[in-house]
C-alpha cells in the first residue's frame, strides 16, 4: 500500500445484504433506517481504530428476499466493493446461503435476525446478533404449556423456507419431549406465496389442538389468523420473532390482538440505552423501531466494536478481515440494546428471549423474559 492509496482509504466500508424489495421489504427498510441512523452518529466525529480516525461507509445491496439474490449480493459486496465486513442478510432463507459465501471468501458477517442454526454452523467467519431457534422453539413450547396449559399443539408453517421449517421442527421436538410422542396433533405445511390455508386450518381446527404455533412472517400471519378465525378457531395463537419485523399490526388490525410471540426485545416499556435508541429512531422516522432495527443496530455496533478492538487496520483487506473475525469470536458481555451477549465458539450469542403480548392498543407489551 502506498501512502497515497492509504489516504483515500480513510473509510471503513461495511456491506448490508438486506431485502429492500420482495416478500418482506419492511424488514429491509428497518435495517437500512437503523444503519443510516448509526452512520450519522458515528460520522459526526469518526471512529478511532488504533491511532487513526476513520469515517464509516455503508453499502446497501438489495437481496429481494431471495436466496439466490442474497448470494450474488454477498459476492458483489465482498469482491467488488471490498467491504471489511458484512451485516445481514436478515432472514435465514437468505442468511444460510449468503453465510456460505462470506465464509468461503473469508469475510466476517453478522446476521442480525437469522435464528436458524445452520447460518453459523461450521462457519468461523459467520456470526449472529440474535438467539437461535434451538432456544426459541423450546421457549415457545414451554410458554404454551405454562400459559395456556396446553397438552396438544398444532403447527402451521412454510415448508419451503428455512426459518419457519427449522423453528417448527424445534418447537415440535420440545413440545413432544414435554407431553409425549404425538402431542403435536397437527403439523401442517404450505409453500411460500400461498394465500389460502383453509384446508390446513380445517385439519388444525378438527385436531383438538389447544394452541396453534405459527412461525411465519408478518405478511402471512394476518392471512393465517383471519382464516383460522373464519374456520372457527377461538384458541390462542403463538408466534415467533418473525412476527415483530415489519408492519404486522397495520396488516392484521384487531385480529392479532391478544396473541403472544417470542421475540428479541419489547419496545413498549424499554429503559436506558434501549429507550434512547427508540426515542432517537422515533424522532427520525416517526415510527417505533421493530426488532430488526434494534438487532441491526446491535450487529453493526458489534462489527464496529470488533474493528476497534483489532487495535489498528493494516489496509490489507484480507488481513483485516481475518483480524476482525478473530476478535468477534471472543466478545464477552457486549452490552447491546437487545440485551447483553457473549459469543460461543460457534458465533452464536448467549442472550435472553422475551415473550410479548399484543395488547388492545396494538402495542407489543413485555410479558415475560426467558433466559437460557
Amino acid at each position, binding site marked *: 500500500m502506498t501512502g497515497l492509496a492509504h489516504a483515500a482509504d480513510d473509510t471503513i466500508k461495511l456491506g448490508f445484504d438486506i431485502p429492500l424489495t420482495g416478500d418482506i421489504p419492511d424488514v429491509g427498510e428497518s435495517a437500512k433506517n437503523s444503519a443510516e441512523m448509526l452512520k450519522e452518529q458515528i460520522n459526526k466525529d469518526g471512529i478511532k481504530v488504533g491511532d487513526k480516525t476513520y469515517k464509516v461507509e455503508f453499502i446497501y445491496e438489495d437481496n429481494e428476499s431471495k436466496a439466490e439474490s442474497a448470494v450474488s449480493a454477498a459476492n458483489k459486496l465482498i469482491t467488488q466493493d471490498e467491504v471489511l465486513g458484512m451485516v445481514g442478510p436478515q432472514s435465514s432463507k437468505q442468511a444460510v446461503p449468503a453465510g456460505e459465501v462470506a465464509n468461503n471468501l473469508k469475510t466476517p458477517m453478522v446476521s442480525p435476525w437469522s435464528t436458524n442454526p445452520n447460518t453459523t454452523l461450521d462457519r468461523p467467519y459467520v456470526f449472529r446478533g440474535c438467539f437461535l431457534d434451538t432456544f426459541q422453539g423450546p421457549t415457545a413450547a414451554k410458554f404454551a404449556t405454562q400459559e395456556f396449559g396446553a397438552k396438544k399443539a398444532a403447527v402451521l408453517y412454510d415448508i419451503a423456507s428455512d426459518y419457519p421449517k427449522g423453528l417448527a421442527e424445534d418447537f415440535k421436538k420440545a413440545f413432544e419431549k414435554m407431553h409425549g410422542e404425538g402431542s403435536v396433533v397437527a403439523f401442517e*405445511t404450505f*409453500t411460500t406465496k400461498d394465500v*389460502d390455508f383453509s384446508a390446513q386450518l380445517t385439519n388444525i381446527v*378438527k385436531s383438538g389442538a389447544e394452541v396453534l404455533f405459527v412461525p411465519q412472517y408478518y405478511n402471512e400471519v394476518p392471512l393465517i389468523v383471519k382464516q383460522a378465525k373464519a374456520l372457527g378457531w377461538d384458541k390462542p395463537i403463538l408466534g415467533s420473532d418473525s412476527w415483530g419485523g415489519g408492519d404486522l399490526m397495520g*396488516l*392484521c388490525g384487531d385480529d392479532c390482538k391478544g396473541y403472544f410471540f417470542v421475540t428479541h426485545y419489547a419496545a413498549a416499556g424499554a429503559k436506558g440505552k434501549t429507550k434512547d435508541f427508540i426515542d432517537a429512531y422515533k424522532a427520525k422516522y416517526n415510527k417505533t423501531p421493530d426488532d430488526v432495527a434494534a438487532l441491526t443496530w446491535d450487529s453493526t455496533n458489534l462489527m464496529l466494536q470488533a474493528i476497534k478492538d483489532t487495535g489498528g487496520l493494516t489496509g490489507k483487506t484480507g488481513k483485516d478481515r481475518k483480524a476482525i473475525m478473530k476478535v468477534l469470536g471472543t466478545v464477552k458481555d457486549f452490552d447491546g440494546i437487545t440485551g447483553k451477549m457473549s459469543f460461543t465458539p460457534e458465533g452464536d450469542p448467549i442472550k435472553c428471549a422475551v415473550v410479548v403480548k399484543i395488547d388492545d392498543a396494538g402495542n407489543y407489551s413485555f410479558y415475560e423474559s426467558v433466559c437460557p
Partner: protein
Amino acid sequence: MDFAGIIQNILNALQWGSFYSLIALGYCLVYGVLLLINFAHGDIFMVGAYISLFVATLLLGQFGGIPGMPGWLVLTLAVPLVMILTSCVGVTLERIAYRPLRRKGAHRLYVVITALMCGLILENGNLALFGASRRSFPTLVETHVFDVSGVAVTNIKLAVILVAIIAFLFLRFVVVKTKIGMAMRAISYDKFAVPLMGIPIDTVIVFTFVLGSGFAGLAGLMFAMTYPVLDPYMGAMIGWKAFIAAVVGGIGSIRGAFAGGFLLGFVEIMVVAFFPSTLRDLIAFSILLFILWLKPTGLYGVARRTKI
C-alpha cells in the same frame, strides 16, 4: 377425516375455486373472440384488487367524500366502480397494445408476447408507484362465522361463491342470448366476413375486454376481502393457474372456464387436506395433464374454431 371435515373442505374448495373461475372466465372471453391468450389478465386482476383498495379507502376513510359510511354501502358502491375502473385498464391495454398489432396484421404469437409484456408492465408499474410493501385491505363487512354442526361458514365465503355463480350465469346469458353476444360468437367464427355484415368489430372487441376485465376487477375485490393482504405480484401465479384451468375446461367455452376453475380449486384443496402440501401442485397438475391427455380440447371444448 369426519363428515363435517369433508363438508368444510368442500366449502373451502368452492371458495378457492371461485377465484380461479372468475379469472378463467376473463381468459375465456378474450380467447373466444380474438383467439388471443391475454396473459396480462392475471395482472389486471391484481390491478382490480388495488383499485378496490383505492376505492374502498377513498369512499370509506378519512379522505372520502362522506366519512363514516357503513361498510355494506361502501361495498355496494365499490362493486360497480371497481368493475368500471378495471375494465378501463383492460380497454386501455387493448387500445395501446393489442389493437395496433391487430391493425398491422401481426401474427398471433407477437400479440401473446405483447400480452406477457403488458402483464410485467402492470406488475412493475405498481411496484414503482406503490412500493414493495404489502397493503392491507380494510374490513368492509365484518366476518360472521356461522357454525352449522361443526362446519364453519362465513358470510364472505358464501358471498364469494355466489358472486362466481352469478358472474357465470350473467356471462353465459350475454354470450348466448344477446345480440352483442351473437356478434362475439360471429367474430370468433370468421373475423374477416363479419365486418362485411355491418358489425362494428372494434366495438365488439372492446366490449369483450370490458366484460373480461370487469369480472377480473370483481374477482380482485372479492379476493381482497377474503385475503386482505395485497402485493404487486399477487396476480401472476393465480393468473397462470386460472389460465390452465380455462384450458382444461376447454378454452373459449364459458362453461368450461367455470368448471375448470372449480375443478382446480377442488383438487388443490383436497390434496392439501389429505396429503402434505408440498404435493399439491404436483398432484393437481398431474391430474389436469391426465384430463388433457384424455381429451385434448378440454372438458367442454370442441374441436372447431367456433368457441365461446
